[in-house]
């Protein structure tokens, strides 16, 4: 990967090794496959949307960073 940025790479990548352990898993949510992030305090957030339907990427309910509850996941 080539970083082309005015921010030095040391600053961009600082703290990359001591991050809190988050788990990623795949689930189905509102008819689409998503990758969910699970934080240590059991919060669930959409990390990525895995879909080939372009319109889903504009759906406000499927945006990365949105919190989801475990019961809605399949």
């Amino acid at each position, binding site marked *: 990967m080539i970083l*082309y940025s*005015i921010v030095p790479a040391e600053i961009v990548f600082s703290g990359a090794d001591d991050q809190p352990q988050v788990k990623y898993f795949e689930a189905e949510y509102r008819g689409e496959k998503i990758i969910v992030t699970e934080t240590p305090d059991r919060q669930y957030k959409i990390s990525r949307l895995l879909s080939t339907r*372009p319109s889903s990427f504009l759906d406000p309910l499927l945006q990365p960073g949105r919190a989801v509850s475990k019961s809605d996941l399949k």
Partner: protein
Amino acid sequence: MPKDEIRSKLERLMSAQTEQAEQSKETDRINEITELGRMTVSNPRGNIHCLTIIGQIEGHIILPPQNKTTKYEHVIPQLVAIEENTEIEGLLLILNTVGGDVEAGLAIAEMIASMDKPKVSLVLGGGHSIGVPMAVSTDYSFIAPSATMTIHPIRLNGLVIGVPQTYEYFDKMQERVVQFVSKNSGISKDEFRKLMLKTGELANDVGTVLFGEDAVRYKLINEVGGLSDAMNKLYELIEQKRKSKANIIATGGELQ
């Protein structure tokens, strides 16, 4: 219980429900803005979509959380959706970025450049490094007077082997940026390269910092302006597009 009382109670309950629904809609909208900096604006002059490119452009490696990032794997399908959605007529690209992954930045820039819908960009604060090709990828670009653009060579990071091939490789990588920028703006390849390698401008690097007006003088950006200028230009382009579409339909009718 008298009928009137029941009715008034029911009405109150229903109005509370609609209020609640409206409130949750509002929070959804706000969430969308805070999480993604993205929203749709619609009015009779045209239905536009606003995409903000902020912080680092995140590429193939997830950056540590202290970085604010724009994730290319989400932006690219969004651009596809914007292009194919019949209701969206134009794209406003707002940039305030410090640069990032070359491949991801160029991918987004190429996607925007090859879109058929009218698009206008506005650089606020900074459009540095890989932000430069993204800023010039639209039909028309604006820069705020106080905004800056830093143009510098691609730096080496990670393990570097001191052989001539390393230099050649980086020269090639740099050439992709130079080519894209010169193709999509008024600046020539030589001039852009000169700005990249200029000395005496940056404290610890070669390169140039361009202020709003300088960027326009070098023909990198079309015009100095703000939000209203960018919006007006976008609506103007949308109007042109609508007219040319109407013309095609009209002439097509004559042929038959």
